[in-house]
């Protein structure tokens, strides 16, 4: 212990010393209290608005309610794309503490594959709204649903959600026409309003589903809710109900579509049927198809691989994108072009040998008939499909008139109004060849184009719509899938316009051409004489498209060739010839003889015109045909 000063201590002075210090401390306390109040003033008065906003951002969340998607009907009110309730096991990742634990728990209840978990984990890392549930397993069976429901209370963050999913009741025959919806990718979200698609399960990808996405989707409902810090919704502050998507009524006839699909048999190919009075597509078949339902909730890797690797290319939409040589089906148009520009007349006669040469010593362009057709005129060139006639005609015309005339029928352009992804085909021209091959257009090129071969490539939709224009005697409709949207007629906004007349210098040529095409069936030498004997009149034109080029003197022998090298078999036609109600283009890939598409067309005409389909198609009849 240190020295003591007790004797000298001045207690009052010591007391005063501490009292002064207490006063200093009191002032310090006051100062600090003022600092606190100043801080509170800063936060609560000066920055109040900022923090008020932050507090509202915290608690107010916009929840999007996906609208029910519009349905897609055929012309007889058969539902081609339906909405169906399903139950899915969903997880809100934010409410799960321990995923490995949850995995263990769930595996004891229902079976969840590794792939489903992997898929879930992937999507968990993608962009998403916080507290939005993610589907782990969709389409629970009733048994699975019951099992999960029992244990739900002890599975934090897990719920069973009832959702509307898309369902295509008639599967593969309709896949290429109706299209499908699929899982929304981040790429999809770049083209749509993200907010609206929150909570949506899928988006239209192809076909009508893809083209009419906006219309079918409707408008998402928006509800403003108050949430707590864990994202639980406490109350609803404001609400805007969703507007359901509009229903589409297509021109498509489900029975015709299915029938055409079946009639193609084991062949790959395409059938496009159009109503010449409206431009409405009655059937749009590409075979093989695929089950569009596979895509709705995201197609599995295995399923997709099977489809992708199939040699028959089921995912390839032949009707829209298949580039085929139109072959002899181009002849009626070529003839009209010759008439239009004065290179041909109905009366002029021509001696058809078994081949055609541009120069006396030049290459021989062979006719399908080795012996030739003898003296013929234009009409007969159609009836018997005389190749040499069109060789010489095309050579006389050159490519430019051909190009200009065929353009008026929709060749070389994407002319279908309401489906995406149509190919332009190829209607060659001088300029095209120069740009593509840096070579001039040779007369030989024209000769090949004269019979719809060579550089010329067209899609089934293009050939069908051109045929439809013939049937309507030049009244041209851009082909279209959709008749009405909701209660209103479909309106198309792609600048092509709606309908117009193709006016020929001599309008009588339409009728004469129809007569010639009629004789293709009725004439004893007609290439489609097998279609005789109908109570109504069919007009048509056959075609066989070369898959590979024959050498000059080589004979085409179907039997010795592999099937994949067989010629494509084509047919265009319409009926009844006087007032056509339906025009058809059909192609059997490697079908060899044009009898197959001709027979198919006749079967379709029969069925469509008399509403007389085989009984097995009654399920596609729809309610408009009842009674």
């Amino acid at each position, binding site marked *: 212990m*240190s020295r*003591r*000063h*007790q004797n*000298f*201590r001045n207690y009052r002075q*010591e*007391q005063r*010393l*501490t*009292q002064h*210090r*207490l006063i200093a*401390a*009191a002032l310090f*306390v*006051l100062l*600090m*209290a003022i*600092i*606190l*109040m100043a*801080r*509170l*003033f800063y*936060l*609560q*008065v000066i*920055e*109040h608005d*900022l*923090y*008020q906003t*932050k*507090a*509202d951002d*915290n*608690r107010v969340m916009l929840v999007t309610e996906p609208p029910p998607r519009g349905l897609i009907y055929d012309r007889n009110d058969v539902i081609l794309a339906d909405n169906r309730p399903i139950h899915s096991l969903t997880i809100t990742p934010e409410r799960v503490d321990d995923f490995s634990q949850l995995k263990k728990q769930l595996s004891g209840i229902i079976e969840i594959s590794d792939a489903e978990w992997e898929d879930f984990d992937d999507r968990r890392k993608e962009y998403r709204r916080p507290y939005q549930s993610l589907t782990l397993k969709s389409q629970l069976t009733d048994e699975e649903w019951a099992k999960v429901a029992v244990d739900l209370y002890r599975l934090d963050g897990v719920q069973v959600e009832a959702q509307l999913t898309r369902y295509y009741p008639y599967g593969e025959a309709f896949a290429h026409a109706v299209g499908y919806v699929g899982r929304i990718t981040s790429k999809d979200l770049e083209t749509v309003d993200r907010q609206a698609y929150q909570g949506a399960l899928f988006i239209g990808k192809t076909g009508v589903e893809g083209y009419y996405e906006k219309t079918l989707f409707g408008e998402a409902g928006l509800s403003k809710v*108050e*949430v*707590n*810090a*864990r994202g639980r919704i*406490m109350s609803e502050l404001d609400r805007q109900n969703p507007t359901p998507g509009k229903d589409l009524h297509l021109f498509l006839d489900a029975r015709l579509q299915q029938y055409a699909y079946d009639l193609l048999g084991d062949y790959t190919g395409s059938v496009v049927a159009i109503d010449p009075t409206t431009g409405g597509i009655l059937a749009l078949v590409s075979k093989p198809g695929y089950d569009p339902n596979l895509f709705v909730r995201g197609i599995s890797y295995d399923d997709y691989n099977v489809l992708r690797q199939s040699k028959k290319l089921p995912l390839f939409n032949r009707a829209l994108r298949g580039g085929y040589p139109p072959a002899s089906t181009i002849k009626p148009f070529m003839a009209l072009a010759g008439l239009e520009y004065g290179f041909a007349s109905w009366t002029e006669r021509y001696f058809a040998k078994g081949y055609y040469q541009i120069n006396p010593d030049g290459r021989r362009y062979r006719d399908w008939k080795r012996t030739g057709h003898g003296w013929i005129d234009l009409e007969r060139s159609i009836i018997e499909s005389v190749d040499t006639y069109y060789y010489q005609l095309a050579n006389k015309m050159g490519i430019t008139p051909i190009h200009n005339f065929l353009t008026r029928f929709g060749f070389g352009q994407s002319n279908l109004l309401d489906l995406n992804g149509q190919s332009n085909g190829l209607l060659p021209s001088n300029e095209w060849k120069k740009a593509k091959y840096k070579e001039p257009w040779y007369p030989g090129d024209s000769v090949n184009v004269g019979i719809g071969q060579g550089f010329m490539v067209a899609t089934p939709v293009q050939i069908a719509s051109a045929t439809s224009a013939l049937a309507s005697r030049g009244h041209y409709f851009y082909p279209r899938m959709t008749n009405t949207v909701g209660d209103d007629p479909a309106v198309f906004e792609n600048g092509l316009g709606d309908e117009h007349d193709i006016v020929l210098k001599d309008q009588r040529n339409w009728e004469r051409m129809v007569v010639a095409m009629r004789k293709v069936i009725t004439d004893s030498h007609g290439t489609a004489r097998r279609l005789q004997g109908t109570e109504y009149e069919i007009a048509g034109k056959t075609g066989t498209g070369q898959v590979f080029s024959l050498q000059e003197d080589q004979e085409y022998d179907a039997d010795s060739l592999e099937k994949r090298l067989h010629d494509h078999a084509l047919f265009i036609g319409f009926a009844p010839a006087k007032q056509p109600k339906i025009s058809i283009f059909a192609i059997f890939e490697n079908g060899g003889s044009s009898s197959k598409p001709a027979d198919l067309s006749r079967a379709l005409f029969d069925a469509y015109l008399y509403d007389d389909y085989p009984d097995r198609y009654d399920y596609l009849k729809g309610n408009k045909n009842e009674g």
Partner: protein
Amino acid sequence: MKDSIYRRALSFTNARLWKLVHIDILLIASLLLLIAGGLFILYSASGQDVEMVERQVFRLAVGLLVCLALAQLPPKYMRRSSPALFIFISVLLIGVLFFGVGAKGAQRWLALPGGLRFQPSEIMKIVMPMMIAWYFSDRQLPPSFKQILVVLGLIVLPVLLIAKQPDLGTSLLVAVSGIFVLFLAGLGWRYILGAAALAPIAGYTLWQFMHDYQRQRVLTFLNPESDPLGSGWNIIQSKTAIGSGGLYGKGFLEGTQAQLDFLPESHTDFIIAVLAEEFGMLGCGVLILAYLLVIARGLYISATAEDNYARLLAGSLTLTFFVYMFVNIGMVSGILPVVGVPLPLVSYGGTSIITIMATFGILMSIQTHKRAR
């Protein structure tokens, strides 16, 4: 008749009876005001959990009993027992290092038989100023340089022990309570200014002693937005709660930050944010005023105390109580780092309620054992 009732009522407040039972009516009244307000806020902050409020009431009642009991003990006994208590608690603090129990990586408690737990560092908040005040009680003020060094030595050891647990908040408060005695004893201003100059170095040294999570708190304090979902979350949400409250608040039970659980620890360390959100700056002002009332009374008791020991002890305890409040509100409103100091007498739970009430017991003892003048 009327006159006599008034007189008797007045005589109640007037002294003798209260002095007899060693209750300082002004101090206890302002404390009860604070406590009542605190319970009111707690009801809202706990999500209207009546049971939680009841448990808090119970704890406060125990605290009040401790307070009243201590008030009966004359200050001279406290003075005499100070060194022994200091040594005892220091030994216990060493014991905590070896035998302590705790949670979340902190080792703060000693287990007692019967499942009870005991936190020596909490007692040190009172014992530290007692010890330093005792040291000065028979020495002439102001302290000499040598005495200052001795006192600093006395302060440093327990503070380091507590910091090691680790419990930064408590160790700071213990240090502060000792330093306040030194200040009130007349520590020369040149030392104070010198210390202020040396603060950066001290800060660096402290940084070296800090645990990662403590450093993180400081870093987060400096820039809460750097980690908005992690350690910055608390402070961002509390500032949002306070700021959105505005001048008059959103109304009782209407605070969205507090009621929807955006505000973390809303019933413990961050309870002032609930008040700020629901009653605005006005409510905070009233609360701070209630604290100042208590502190003013404490300082008055100190200033009028009879000897150096009582004077220094009362002053230090009062000022430490203020630091408590200041650090808490400062950290919740974002001007101080989050050090885990509860808002005294308002925050839910903790041993701190008992020790704080004990300090007021000591204050009342000092006030009510004065010889009548």
